[in-house]
């Protein structure tokens, strides 16, 4: 699944480690989600959406 995580993160000038700290996950998790290697669970997707104050479908896109 594609996502806009890297762009949204870059807009806020956050590193992967910064985002990982805010989400309370590992930096490897952020990297895996950004590169599309791993699709987050619904709770984590909601957490990400909440952090960026956006809807899930505005961050995670259909292929």
């Amino acid at each position, binding site marked *: 699944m594609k996502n806009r995580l890297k762009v949204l993160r870059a807009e806020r000038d956050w590193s*992967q480690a910064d985002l990982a700290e805010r989400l309370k996950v*590992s*930096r490897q*998790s952020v990297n*895996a989600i950004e590169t599309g290697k791993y699709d*987050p669970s619904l709770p*984590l997707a909601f957490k990400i959406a909440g952090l960026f104050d956006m809807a899930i479908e505005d961050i995670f896109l259909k292929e």
Partner: protein
Amino acid sequence: MNQTDERGQQAPKQAIPPSMKRYFWRIAIFMIAYMAILIGGLSLKNSANPPEGIFAYALAILTALPICGVFWAVFRLLVEMEDEYQRFLVAKQIMIATAVTLCAATIWQFLNVYDLAQEGPQWLGVLWLVMFGIAGGIVRWRA
């Protein structure tokens, strides 16, 4: 060792999660217990008066229990891991180890059926643990 993120900056070293700390402690305790029981048990077995009957059975099972504890520690790690992506990687690691062990056991068993191997599958638990270690490297290398 700190890793470098995509901006070329040194990512801060992440603390070891509590679930991993508990896992390492559990593994250390079970391995120390295993070594102590194994050395003591083999010394008894090779002594002038080796245990017999129910005592021999008890000693054999007692030696196996710490290894069973290692399996328990691995599956508890899967339950307790805080990070869902890391949990996903450990689940993959377990699946690879299980698949390879079951394939090896099946092939070995049929070699035995066709009289091409002297004995049937043995030490499958140890094989699983070795494969679990190897799979860990593969899964994280590909992650």
